């Protein structure tokens, strides 16, 4: 298996799918240890939405790259360098504020992306996007509600929310990067030009941060590489945990 699928559309779908799967697993790590029971259910609901989205995308990618790989093959039998998710989604959960900040930054981006992909010339991708728009709208709503309450809450919640935002902000630059693959697929009407989503993303995030009485961090360093399979340190540990059972007991079933 190679990091970049031969079919460009399949390679693009893997990026979308890996974003969903990795964030889904991060959220699932909150299961049984969220700050409150209600939030435990909320976070795992979002994780399940994302898992469902990733499954549909892997199935479509498998059709396009002709490899006949199953969803499990993509999730459990690829190594770190073969995952092409963005760096933002793989960052550790941290405290609740970090998880919520990551969710605000990513879901806002993902919602814009899904909306644009509803017009993709790949009809199956367009259908997946149309379903995902509703789910992701709720993810944004959930994140916004918390960011406003924690940002505009107590001294401690404000401090933590701001620290979380500051630590994750550098990873947002990568979301809007284009490369040869996206440019090629944008011409064919399959993909969205990530750069085109930037303005609306900026507006939405700025509005939320203002309401939350938070400071928008200044642009600083902009780590990148996720789309080429170059990941940050925490990702390897996450993947090892996620894949351990399947790799130790191939074909294990409940």
């Amino acid at each position, binding site marked *: 298996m190679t990091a970049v699928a031969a079919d460009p559309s399949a390679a693009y779908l893997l990026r979308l799918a890996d974003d969903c799967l990795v964030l889904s697993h991060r959220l699932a790590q909150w299961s049984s240890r969220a*700050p*409150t*029971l*209600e*939030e435990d*259910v*909320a976070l795992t*609901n979002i994780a399940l939405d994302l898992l469902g989205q990733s499954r549909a995308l892997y199935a479509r990618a498998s059709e396009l790259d002709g490899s006949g790989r199953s969803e499990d093959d993509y999730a459990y039998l690829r190594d770190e360098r073969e995952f092409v998710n963005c760096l933002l989604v793989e960052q550790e959960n941290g405290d609740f504020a970090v998880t919520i900040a990551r969710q605000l930054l990513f879901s806002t981006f993902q919602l814009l992306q899904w909306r644009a992909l509803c017009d993709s010339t790949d009809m199956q991708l367009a259908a997946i996007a149309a379903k995902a728009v509703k789910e992701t709208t709720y993810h944004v*709503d*959930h994140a916004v*509600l918390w960011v406003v*309450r924690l940002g505009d809450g107590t001294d401690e919640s404000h401090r933590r929310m701001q620290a979380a935002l500051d630590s994750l902000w550098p990873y947002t630059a990568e979301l809007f990067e284009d490369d040869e693959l996206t440019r090629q697929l944008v011409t064919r009407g399959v993909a969205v030009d990530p750069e085109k989503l930037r303005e609306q993303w900026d507006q939405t995030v700025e509005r939320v941060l203002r309401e939350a009485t938070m400071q928008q961090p200044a642009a600083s360093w902009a780590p990148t590489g996720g789309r080429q399979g170059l990941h940050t340190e925490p990702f390897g540990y996450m993947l090892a945990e996620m894949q351990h059972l399947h790799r130790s007991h191939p074909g294990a079933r409940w």
Partner: protein
Amino acid sequence: MSERSHEPLWEVFIRSKRGLSHNHVGSLHAADAQLALRNARDVFTRRMEGVSIWVVPSAEITASSPDERDPFFEPAADKAYRHPTFYDIPKEVKQL
């Protein structure tokens, strides 16, 4: 799970797809009404149970007390004539 005493309790009412009225389904803790509504969505409607949700602060509900049970409900027990069973329904009336 952390200390929740600072978060008020909310009663949750859900109207199901075919239902005509909201039914009480349970209660939960939340810091404010908007969070309570979303928590209710996540906790009580995961399996398509509803199309509409109400949340009401539990503190706003005035409930009858078990001590008042006899004066409240006992007097109705022997007033069978309050049930509409003492007249014949004409044959022509089908939907009643």
